């Protein structure tokens, strides 16, 4: 491999590892929290849906978690990367390096949580008797890449815009929770009326989350949803790159 390319790879890896290390610095359990957190969340939801709020859908905890864990990767990435550029003023102003690496590293560091949550989902799947199977090995990497693409697009744009308008931080909080309810996470896609579904492509997470749920819950590869989500993901990535490059030229004047 070309030396410069190897150096870039090293840099990205080190920045990612730095994010992960820093997240758990000064905690006793360290990276174990990444595993413990989803387990505790699963227990809480299980109690909530079994005892307090008895939802008539079969296996609702599993249904909810299979969408919630991928969603959490997205929402944590967006929330974290909003402040990434302004939080690294020193680095950006004093050292010349690809600035988008900071954003990519933030997203990759958040992926760790999803990876730790997958074994828990696998337990649910095993108990339900449908999986996990060979389909998981094919689909999960495809979905991770697809979700990475759309997340990167959105995070690049938001982190850059936030350097110009710090108001973004507050707007994002609201938009994220709006998006949470507009994405089929707590409800299935099919309860949305047929006539509205065409607009759902605008929400890049709709079909992505649907595809996640199809594979995790039913061990079924939903190629149609994967295709649609890849299409809109690439669109968002393009938009993100344009915003990042366009506004990036004057970044030094605003941070």
């Amino acid at each position: 491999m070309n030396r410069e390319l190897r150096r870039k790879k090293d840099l990205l890896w080190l920045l990612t590892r730095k994010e992960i290390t820093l997240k758990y610095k000064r905690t006793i359990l360290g990276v174990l929290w990444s595993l413990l957190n989803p387990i505790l969340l699963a227990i809480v939801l299980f109690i909530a849906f079994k005892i307090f709020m008895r939802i008539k859908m079969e296996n609702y905890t599993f249904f909810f978690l299979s969408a919630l864990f991928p969603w959490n990767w997205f929402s944590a990435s967006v929330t974290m990367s909003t402040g990434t550029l302004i939080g690294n003023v020193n680095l950006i102003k004093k050292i010349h390096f690809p600035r988008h690496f900071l954003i990519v590293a933030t997203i990759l560091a958040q992926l760790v949580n999803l990876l730790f949550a997958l074994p828990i989902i696998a337990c649910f799947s095993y108990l339900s008797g449908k999986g996990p199977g060979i389909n998981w090995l094919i689909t999960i990497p495809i979905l991770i890449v697809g979700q990475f693409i759309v997340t990167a697009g959105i995070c690049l744009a938001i982190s850059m815009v936030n350097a110009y308008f710090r108001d973004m931080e507050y707007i994002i909080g609201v938009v994220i929770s709006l998006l949470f309810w507009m994405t089929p996470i707590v409800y299935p896609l099919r309860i949305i009326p047929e006539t509205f579904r065409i607009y759902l492509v605008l929400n890049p997470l709709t079909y992505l989350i649907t595809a996640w749920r199809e594979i995790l819950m039913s061990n079924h590869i939903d190629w149609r949803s994967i295709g649609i989500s890849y299409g809109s993901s690439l669109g968002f990535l393009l938009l993100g790159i344009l915003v990042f490059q366009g506004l990036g030229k004057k970044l030094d004047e605003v941070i």
Partner: protein
Amino acid sequence: MNGVVEIKDVWKKFPMHRDKPGFKEFLVNLPKFVNRNSNSDFWALKGISIDVKQGECLGIIGKNGAGKSTLLSLILGTIYPTKGGIKVSQKITPLLDIGAGFHPDLTGRENIIINGVLLGLTKDEVMGRIEDVVSFSGIKEFIDMPVRTYSTGMYLRLAFSVAIHTDPELLIIDEILAVGDEAFQKKSREALLALIKEGVTTIFVSHNLSAVKEICRRAIWLDDGMIQAEGESEKVVGDYLRLITHGQ
């Protein structure tokens, strides 16, 4: 063809009012933002052209606010020129704010690795010379402790050691750094001079005029964003001194 840094007619302006408008203000005043009045801009550099040759040491002098730091940042690539072009064909090692990439919660060793890669090495290369970096810094016993527990002196010594061990091709220095105690100052100064003598291209900004005369053969005097004088460092420094002592 052997110009390491080629700066051609570079202009750089900064907006004068630095208080950032919020989103609401931006929308309300949109027309004003679109055809923004250029009176409120400050031109930090006005048509600078400089060529730096391979192996040369160029000194840059001038008053505060003359545009020296802006020029360095432009060469470094952390800001873009408003007009004009800059070409740099060597790997830059900045000795400006050393330790800028350090994170207080990471250990000295972790910071060496990240900074080494940020300054242009691969991870393997950093690992190969990490012991040299540590021994040069002279803080071996603290190297696996978080940097936030370091004293200012220790912090700067470590940062300097990393920078000097990254095979600099083009050094950018803002003042000869007075790092650490007497002994370390001497050591770091000698290490830098050795690099410059070896033929590492150097751009050296300083208010220490005798150091500029001593180290650099050529010097540039910047004033108000323009080149006031350029040539033999002896002569440029002399002209500059004359203006300071006799000028108003």
